[in-house]
């Protein structure tokens, strides 16, 4: 199975919804498709997710070419991603298909607009 997350907009404003769809390049057997929004801190050696929120956006098998729409609320306090010299802060959407055997997974970085 092969998935791709395609947000409608390149950047999302805090406090609003990010919409888009998960495109299924290669379909297959699936129990659920879960979408999670995470805020990441990442240093050269460690990472942490101070915020994560998500839920099931589809139940059942996924067919090749299928598009699963999603609406993902962005927290009002959400701050833009930034890069330092050895560390960065960023938002990421992750789609995981709970499939028999290995789960299929896709991620994409989400840009948050400054308030």
């Amino acid at each position, binding site marked *: 199975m092969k998935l791709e997350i395609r947000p409608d907009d390149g950047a999302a404003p805090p406090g609003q919804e990010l919409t888009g769809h998960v495109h299924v390049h290669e379909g297959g057997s699936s129990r659920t498709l879960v979408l999670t929004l995470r805020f990441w801190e990442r240093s050269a050696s*460690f990472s942490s997710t*101070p915020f994560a929120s998500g839920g099931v956006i589809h139940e059942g098998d996924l067919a090749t070419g299928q598009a699963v729409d999603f609406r993902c609320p962005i927290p009002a306090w959400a701050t833009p991603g930034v890069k330092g010299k050895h560390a960065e802060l960023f938002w990421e959407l992750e789609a995981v298909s709970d499939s028999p055997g290995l789960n299929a997974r896709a991620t994409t970085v989400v840009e948050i607009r400054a308030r």
Partner: protein
Amino acid sequence: MFAAGVWVAAGGRGSRFDRQEELWGGLLFAAFGLLALYVVIVVWGQQSERHPRLRGVTLSLTSDRVRRGDELSVVVTGRMPDMERLELGLICDERSDTEVHTNVAIVHETAETTVLEEWQVVPTLAVEATCTFRVPPASPYSYEGDCVSFAWRIAARAARAGQPDARLEEPIWVEP
């Protein structure tokens, strides 16, 4: 400790003690003495690298909270008699948890790096001067996290002949 250890190892306590025990015990005691001396030197060296506090000068900010892309005015007042040059700076430091691989272990450290640093020279004859900084719009904002932090500050540094730079710092909070 070192001297006493060497004295014991050399048999200074006389022949009524076991020679081998005296030798190894004395060497161990001397080694601890060297270790203590090393720690003292390292701590003293770290402290001597710190900048002395800049006295006789005050910093006033229009606000201690600023947004990225905005301007921040800093008023510096006062002079030091032996000051050769005074500069005001806007500084952003990054602190991030990192693993350092040594010969014997993997050590968990907090690394500190200056991400952004901008200095302006204050006219040396002025008793009061204002400097204006613009926080770059794409720079990191103030953030205190689990393994990553970004901290901003305004600093005054004074160069003095034959002495380390004296510094005065005021933290600011940069909003996204």
